[in-house]
């Protein structure tokens, strides 16, 4: 879309890695500060949307092919629900993380991180999918 605009191109190129890093920080520091999977997924998706806006849909599709988006979309929910099932197999209730490790608190910590990762993945894939599908429509 903005092939000849040098300032947005350069600024987005410089900012993209830092936005990705911030998204990862929000993802994995959700248990210490504000944030978590939902916010991190959205911030992570915003980088790819920015990329698509500036470098065009065709290049963005090369970076993030539809098949990968679809796999991530389902995988996120599966990771979340799967953690619950693993808890059941290890003798607890569905989504009880205390049984995941010997120490209940460590189990909780692990479980929360894993499900937040699943949340982030599903939200990221969903946001990117919705944007790509809308922006990829033929203009009438």
């Amino acid at each position, binding site marked *: 879309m903005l092939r000849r605009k040098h300032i947005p191109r350069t600024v987005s190129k410089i900012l993209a890695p830092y936005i990705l890093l911030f998204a990862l920080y*929000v993802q994995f520091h*959700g*248990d*210490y*500060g*504000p*944030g*978590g999977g*939902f*916010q991190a997924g*959205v*911030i992570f*998706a*915003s980088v790819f*949307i920015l990329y698509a806006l500036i470098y065009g849909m065709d290049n963005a599709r090369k970076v993030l092919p*539809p*098949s990968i988006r*679809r796999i991530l*979309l*389902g995988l*996120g*929910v599966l990771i*979340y*629900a799967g953690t*619950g099932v693993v808890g059941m197999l290890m003798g607890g209730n*569905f*989504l009880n*993380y205390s049984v995941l490790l010997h120490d209940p*608190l460590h189990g*909780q*910590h692990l*479980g*929360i991180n894993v*499900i*937040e990762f*699943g*949340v982030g993945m*599903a*939200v990221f*894939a*969903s*946001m990117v*999918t*919705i*944007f790509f*599908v*809308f*922006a*990829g*429509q033929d*203009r*009438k």
Partner: protein
Amino acid sequence: MILDLIDITLLVFLVVTAVAIVRLDNLFAVVMLLGIFSLISAVLYVQLDAVDVAFTEAAVGAGISTVLMLGTLALTGSEEQKRTHWSPIPLAVVVITGGALVYGTFDMPHYGDPNAPIHQHVADRYIEKSGQEVGPPNIVTSVLASYRGFDTLGEVVVVFTAGAGVLTLLGHGIVSRRKRHRDEEEIKRELEELDLDETDVTVLEEEDI
């Protein structure tokens, strides 16, 4: 006192933005104002010490929603259709519903009231015991991911459904692309059999027109 002033200012901004959104016909400006509305709401949430909610509102409401609505505008056009006739029914519905909601707030507990039902239920347990039972210093995360894990699973499924729904309604499936690819291959093969290449075909088509 200053905090009250900030609250009042922000709420006035919210009302002004809302009225402007209703009055404007240019949908591009409306989308921008909706982003501003979300941002002001986010500041209000910070003011209420709900930083997690504020964060989500800023990222989703002001960020992604604005981009998605702009994407929709690119497909549909950015001017609202002119109203052809005026009808009192929508106004009546809005006034009655709004009035009922305002009437409902009279029964709500005051802000920060320690006797409010919300503070009599499970909140105490979250605040007192989440450190020993779950661990993370951010109680919001403990509630969201552990105590209310099943709720959050439901939310993630909703997000998943939104993505899958958009894909089903508007997306071009993987299967169809593979089929398109196969069709192209077939055309190429047939052309080879006829000893033509694609340039000949385009020339032919142009001549037909």
